[in-house]
């Protein structure tokens, strides 16, 4: 099959992560209903640790819905109902005894539209550590803010204006600020919902580069509209269609030899 997408041959892909490696996130028979609407249908997926997993598929197929199951953001939507089982490190996150606040400290999220708080750059990054009480002193907090901004590749650009409003940054900088804000609480998993769709190509390239670095320490799950992006940044890809997880596997295989007809149609641009 002639894929129009160039797949990047990274070292990790060869090892086919996910196969043999202990999965970080396990989803079994996950269904989501918005009122009467059955938006996600019996999804099973294993997400390997310290890697990037891309969720692709046409608009409205349930990618964001699935992503929001993993940090239980669907709880904030009154009409949403989730059934099935999702485990992180073999712990069921829908267990009634589990504390959502702690779950969300372990599973960070970056949204489609950059949404820095209307506070200073410093306060944006310090927000999570403060509410979770991670820093015992101002010096420790400074340290966390600095390293988070460094990891998000933003520190050099903003180090002289940490007290300026986060909303005064450019779109790409805002998105990296949101990434810094997410990693400031040292999560294990980072969910990204089309993090580059509001950004220009240069800002996009920066974020993609960043993801490549972050996967050394974090498990990243990214929703993307761009198959090129999925191919560039991810090791594994899952293809959703009409609420069904059609196919998932190593990114390289997905883009060169998809098993399912629908996957093939989508990645060759026949629909979507």
């Amino acid at each position, binding site marked *: 099959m002639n894929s129009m997408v160039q797949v990047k041959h990274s070292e990790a892909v060869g090892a086919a992560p996910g196969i043999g490696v202990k999965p970080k996130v396990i989803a079994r028979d996950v269904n989501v209903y918005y009122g009467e609407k059955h938006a996600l249908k019996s999804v099973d997926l294993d997400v390997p640790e310290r890697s990037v997993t891309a969720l692709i598929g046409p608009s409205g197929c349930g990618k964001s819905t699935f992503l929001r199951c993993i940090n239980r953001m669907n709880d904030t939507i009154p009409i949403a109902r989730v059934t099935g089982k999702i485990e992180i490190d073999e712990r069921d996150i829908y267990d009634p005894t589990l504390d959502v606040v702690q779950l969300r400290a372990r599973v960070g999220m970056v949204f489609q539209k950059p*949404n820095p708080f209307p506070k200073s750059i410093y306060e944006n990054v310090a*927000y999570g550590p403060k509410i979770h009480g991670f820093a015992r002193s101002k010096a420790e907090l400074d340290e966390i803010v600095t390293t988070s901004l460094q990891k998000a590749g933003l520190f050099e650009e903003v180090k002289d204006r940490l007290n300026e409003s986060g909303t005064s940054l450019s779109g790409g900088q805002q998105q990296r600020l949101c990434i810094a804000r997410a990693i400031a609480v040292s999560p294990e998993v980072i969910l990204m919902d089309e993090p580059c769709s509001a950004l220009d190509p240069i800002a996009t390239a920066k974020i993609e580069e960043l993801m490549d670095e972050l996967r050394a320490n974090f498990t990243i799950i990214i929703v993307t509209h761009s198959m090129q992006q999925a191919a560039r940044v991810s090791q594994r890809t899952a293809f959703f269609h009409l609420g069904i997880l059609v196919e998932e596997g190593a990114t390289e295989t997905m883009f060169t030899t998809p098993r399912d007809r629908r996957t093939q149609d989508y990645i060759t641009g026949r629909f979507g």
Partner: protein
Amino acid sequence: MVALYCAGIAVLVIVGFLFGRSRAAIAERSEPLHSRPPYHGAYVSICVLLPMLLLLAIGLPIADHLVTSQALHAFDPAVINDDLKRGAALRDIVALAQGRLPGEPSIALRRAADVYVSTHSWTYNLILATGLVFGLLGASFGLRSLSTRFRARNRVERVVKWVLLAAALVAVLTTIGIVFSVLFETVRFFERVSPFEFLFGLQWSPQIAMRADQAGSSGAFGIVPLVVGTLLITTIAMLIAGPIGLFAAIYMAEYASPRFRSFAKPLLEILAGVPTVVLGFFAALTLAPLIREVGESVGLNVASESALAAGIVMGMMIIPFVSSLSDDVINAVPQSLRDGSYAMGSTKSETIKKVILPAAFSGIVSAMMLAISRAVGETMIVVMAAGLAGNLTFNPLQAVTTFTVQIKTILVGDQEFDSAKTLAAFALGFVLFFFTLTLNVIAMQIVKRYREQYD
């Protein structure tokens, strides 16, 4: 007559519109139009309307003047220069002319009434006839200027712009006019009472000025007791309405189910619609005695009219303002900020405290400022519940008085219009105006400083 004239305008305007439009529609068959046919119709209508309205606006006052002066001349030229007699004579003449003067009229009066009727009828008929001619001329002018290339749309748009501008000017000019007339009277007041005494005097008793035999017949015009009274009541009101209104808004916006919202919001708006007189007698007849009883049972000396009662009821009055404005502001905070905060693992109250309220801060401040303006300007509740005595006290259990109450007290009843006492009302009004203005300017500054842009 005016009704007939307006009917004439309406008919000509409609006919003009239809003619203009159909003329354009017919012309369109041979050649494309610059403007759509309705614009041609509207243009003809305007050509009819403007001259007719203009004539009415100029003609009516002239006609009225002519009618009255002719009638008065016929009655007795001597009364023309005497305001009082002139008014009385005119009233009789008009009454007789309309056939509702009781008793037997004098010869002169009858003559005057005849002149009144005849002058009235010929001037008005003249206006009517001229108006119709103007309208027809306008229509024919409008119709003649129509052509396929005629820029009717641009002209109509220009007229629309001028009409809107005129409306805006009326609004601005009346405001300026009011401010200046108050300012003018205030200056006259300060010719009688020194501004220093007015602003810093500790005693307010304008009543004394009415009694010329009194030693200090100039009265005491120190507004400090009024300032203190106003601030005391406003503070009590805001202590109640501020937190309750804000918390209610937070509950409505962040916690309430849509079902609860759908009946609680209208309910609050009903509270906002309760006439302040009603709230006033609730304060005076229900709350004030209650406070007095409770106060006395614990051994406090409570006046039967107290700042506390007025303040509490005023607070109840402005709760809906605070809550409904704050609710709008909180709802305007983008959902993405809430999501961002929840996704960091913060709880609902952390999100409200650390993200939503800071983001909505400027709006909440302006809601509070608006509420304060309302409280400061409120009269009825205070009149009924807080009393008239200009006590200088910070004790909320005493009767106090406010700016608005004093303005009302001074101006109720017969007054000489240039005594210091009456003019004091304008000075009070001016200070009140200045105070609210300052409040608004401060609010605007705060809003500007904290404004956050969301795109």
